[in-house]
């Protein structure tokens, strides 16, 4: 058995978990990306913290393509209307459902939150359905 393919996702996951754990231990808050982003667009009491988090993410994104270009490859065959639909669904859905893969999928699951368990099960299911429909019924393009 070859286990190399597990290493990068696991190391990345440990770093994501570590970053979220630091947010919990130091700032006493949930590290949920969709909530942090939405909170920068309206008056919030910790807006500066939210902006600082985004600056960190974008700084990594500015350097990473030069260090690890393969991380930004693997684009899929999606038209602009499909990408707009996907973005609208992600933006609206994460606000209606109070979280995304980080807030529900990492922080909430770990805290044993019943809301996050239901949310994570739901978005994994509908994500699988969408991927299946586009990949198998629509021939892999949209």
């Amino acid at each position, binding site marked *: 058995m070859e286990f190399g393919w*597990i290493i990068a*996702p*696991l*190391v*990345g*996951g*440990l*770093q*994501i978990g*570590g970053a*979220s754990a*630091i947010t919990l231990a*130091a*700032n006493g*808050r949930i590290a949920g990306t969709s909530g942090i*982003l939405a909170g920068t*667009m309206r008056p919030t009491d910790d807006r500066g*913290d*939210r902006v*600082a*988090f985004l600056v*960190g*993410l974008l700084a*990594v*994104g500015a350097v990473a393509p030069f260090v690890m270009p393969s*991380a*930004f*490859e*693997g*684009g*899929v065959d*999606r038209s*602009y209307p*499909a*990408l707009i639909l*996907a*973005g*609208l*669904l*992600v*933006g*609206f*859905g994460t*606000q209606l*459902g109070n979280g*995304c*893969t*980080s807030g529900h999928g*990492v922080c909430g*699951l*770990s805290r044993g939150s019943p809301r996050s368990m*239901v*949310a*994570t099960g*739901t*978005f*994994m299911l*509908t994500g699988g359905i969408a*991927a*299946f429909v586009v990949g198998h019924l629509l021939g892999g393009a949209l």
Partner: protein
Amino acid sequence: MTRTRWVSLFVGLLFGVGLVISGMTRPDKVIGFLDVAGAWDPSLMFVMGGGVAVYAVAWQIVRRWKAPLVAPAFALPTRRDIDGRLVAGAALFGLGWGIGGYCPGPALVSVPSGQSAVLVFVAAMVAGMQIFRVWDARGRAASAT
């Protein structure tokens, strides 16, 4: 800069590095993971597994504290009820994730790479958040009258 802000900046950097290394910024990998009926790529399960492993341990320790280390008080979600908004919101988010291959964190990290697909997706995601705000405010105003 306040101390919580420095923490947030560091967290953003570490979180971003984790997302890049994990493979979450590649839509083909994300879709290969979500589509269990195709050539299933289970590797991204270890991203969530690694994240949950670290955070679950941290939670068991930190939940006993009276206050966090830097901020004056905890501000954590307390709701435990399952309502239609939660399920519908998660369902819509999942559909968008499965169509585009991006969830919010990886999409934001990918913005500086300048790919037009990411820029279009993120602009629409921000618009979706704003549409929710307007829609939600209208709903609240209507139910208050």
